[in-house]
């Protein structure tokens, strides 16, 4: 075997130009596949990151009626839906892989938030408990957070995020100013921002809708103030912080199951459901994947052409070396040895092509990444698979020429000059 590999290199090196041109088909095919796979993986990673954010691993658990989130700004609270008690929240915090959990209420307010004449139209108002900011990966940019006194005395204070500060105050400092919320005055005590600056890359309308919510501005209130401007006994939503991204699905489902145990609404379609961002990411990924599969097939055709090139040159090589084959048979080489020798040569040829193709593919994907701004994610299994695949091409397309060589009639072969 080693002897065969050595002989193969000898043969390949003695025809450098021919060997390179033969490999070129394999190189191009493998390079194209590596570049496509890297781009797909990069895009997938990007979709995941855009949806999940900068790694806060947050899962929202909200009340749904069928497929829609229950919105209490339009509908009365149905009977049989209790407010989530502090003990239940504690129980959720004890569940496996839950790092933190917090309760909140949320309302999209189109005409309720004003600073002087400026409206925060379409912004969200949140009533949050004391652990909400840390659970969601938000930190104070300026001012202070809510104090226990704010909660205890239901003080009319609020915290803005940087989007709502920008819209309402147009760049001026909001801390200490008073805004109007449903006709009530609220003092801005602080401004929060994400711990890790994360700017999603938006390239489609779907992505735009997904991120619009995050960018339309938010006003946070202590949850004890909520009843003053909205209503009493409104069921909360839950935000979970999972330990790892891969825990998100299971953590959300467990919490939703627990909360559903407390429901006794007549309408059984009212249920807590976890918003599964991983699932959403997968769906979007699948969409982009199916188009990219086409590209892989097209690149596969170039590999096929490359393989035919290998077969062609191997057939030429067999003809050229007819006398050599005849002699080897005459001095005692078995058919299987001749077969192995030519097969090894084909596999060595395509393997070198495969490795060169992988190198070219990595370079190509970096170039594509620079040009399009799509990050390329080089996948090690894909690299290994490509080299293995190019070896397989060597075997498949080397088989016919090798078989031909092995079955040459030694007398005919020896007569051949």
């Amino acid at each position, binding site marked *: 075997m080693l002897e065969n590999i050595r002989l193969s290199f000898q043969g390949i090196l003695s025809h450098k130009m021919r060997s390179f041109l033969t490999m070129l088909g394999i190189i191009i095919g493998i390079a194209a596949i590596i570049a496509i796979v890297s781009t797909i993986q990069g895009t997938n990673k990007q979709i995941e990151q855009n949806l999940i954010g900068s790694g806060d691993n947050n899962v929202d658990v909200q009340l749904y009626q069928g497929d829609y989130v229950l919105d209490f700004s339009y509908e009365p609270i149905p009977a049989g839906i209790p407010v989530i008690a502090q003990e239940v929240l504690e129980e959720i915090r004890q569940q496996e892989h839950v790092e933190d959990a917090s309760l909140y209420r949320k309302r999209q307010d189109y005409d309720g938030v004003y600073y002087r004449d400026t409206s925060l139209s379409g912004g969200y108002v949140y009533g949050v408990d004391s652990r909400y900011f840390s659970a969601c990966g938000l930190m104070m940019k300026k001012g202070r957070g809510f104090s226990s006194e704010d909660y205890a005395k239901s003080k009319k204070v609020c915290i803005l995020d940087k989007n709502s500060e920008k819209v309402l105050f147009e760049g001026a400092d909001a801390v200490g100013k008073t805004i109007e919320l449903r006709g009530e005055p609220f003092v801005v005590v602080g401004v929060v921002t994400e711990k890790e600056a994360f700017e999603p890359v938006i390239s489609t309308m779907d992505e735009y809708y997904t991120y619009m919510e995050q960018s339309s501005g938010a006003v946070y209130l202590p949850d004890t103030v909520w009843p003053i401007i909205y209503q009493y006994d409104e069921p909360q939503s839950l935000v979970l912080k999972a330990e790892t991204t891969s825990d998100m699905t299971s953590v959300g489902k467990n919490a939703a199951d627990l909360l559903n145990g407390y429901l006794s609404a007549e309408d059984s379609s009212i249920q807590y459901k976890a918003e599964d961002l991983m699932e959403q990411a997968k769906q979007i990924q699948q969409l982009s994947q199916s188009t990219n599969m086409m590209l892989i097939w097209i690149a596969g055709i170039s590999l096929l052409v490359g393989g035919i090139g290998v077969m062609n040159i191997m057939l030429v090589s067999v003809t050229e070396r007819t006398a050599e084959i005849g*002699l*080897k048979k*005459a001095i*005692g*080489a078995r*058919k299987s040895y001749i077969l192995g020798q030519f097969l090894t040569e084909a596999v060595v040829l395509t393997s070198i092509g495969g490795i060169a193709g992988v190198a070219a593919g990595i370079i190509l994907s970096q170039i594509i990444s620079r040009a399009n701004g799509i990050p390329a994610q080089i996948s090690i299994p894909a690299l290994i698979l490509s080299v293995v695949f190019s070896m397989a091409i060597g075997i498949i397309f080397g088989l016919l020429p090798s078989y031909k060589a092995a079955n040459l009639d*030694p*007398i005919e072969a*020896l007569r051949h*000059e």
Partner: protein
Amino acid sequence: MILNLQNIYKDYYQDKLVVPVLKDVSLQVYEGEYVAIMGPSGSGKTTLMNIIGCLDRPTNGTYELDGRNILGLNDKTLSEVRLNSVGFVFQNFQLMPRQSALENVCLPLVYAGIKKKERKKRAMAALERVGLEDRAEFKPTQLSGGQKQRVAIARAMVNHPKILLADEPTGALDSKSGSQIMELFHKLNTEGVTIVMITHDARIGEEAERTLHMIDGMLSEKKEGRGV
């Protein structure tokens, strides 16, 4: 008896035309004999040689090599016979052009599955036997015709075959290196190697202890040998 061919017939087919090449050829060769087969080209010498060398099968007849019936063997066993029992020397040497003399001599040992170290040792010994131990690393292009033929003989001898078959071994050589090769064959024969040689050069044929003539696919013996 090393070779025992009885009533060998060989027909070739040209399109639908049957061309008989060997017609009822019988040949016995004993251990240590030096046999020359002479005859004009087209008389069937090479075909007979190919049959003896297990490269070709006769249309009819029986063939025993060292007491073993060759004609019933399959391809794989035939390669083993060629590897271990027969050594081939050709007119045009048939060396691998990109491999050194030593590597060329090693080839049959590779097929025999012998380890690399042992291969080198045995190949060097074979090169010494033909007087080329100082040319071991030379490529065929760096060797003269006579030297190339010596390398080919070393390769044929390296597995210690029962019989050495030579097809016009001096045909591509000048007379001086030709006679050196003939001396080598003599030396090998006196060392006990059985040789069957094809030639159309009467002078060379006479050096053998037994000369057979092939005419039109029929073999006839001029000089009396031991067992016929």
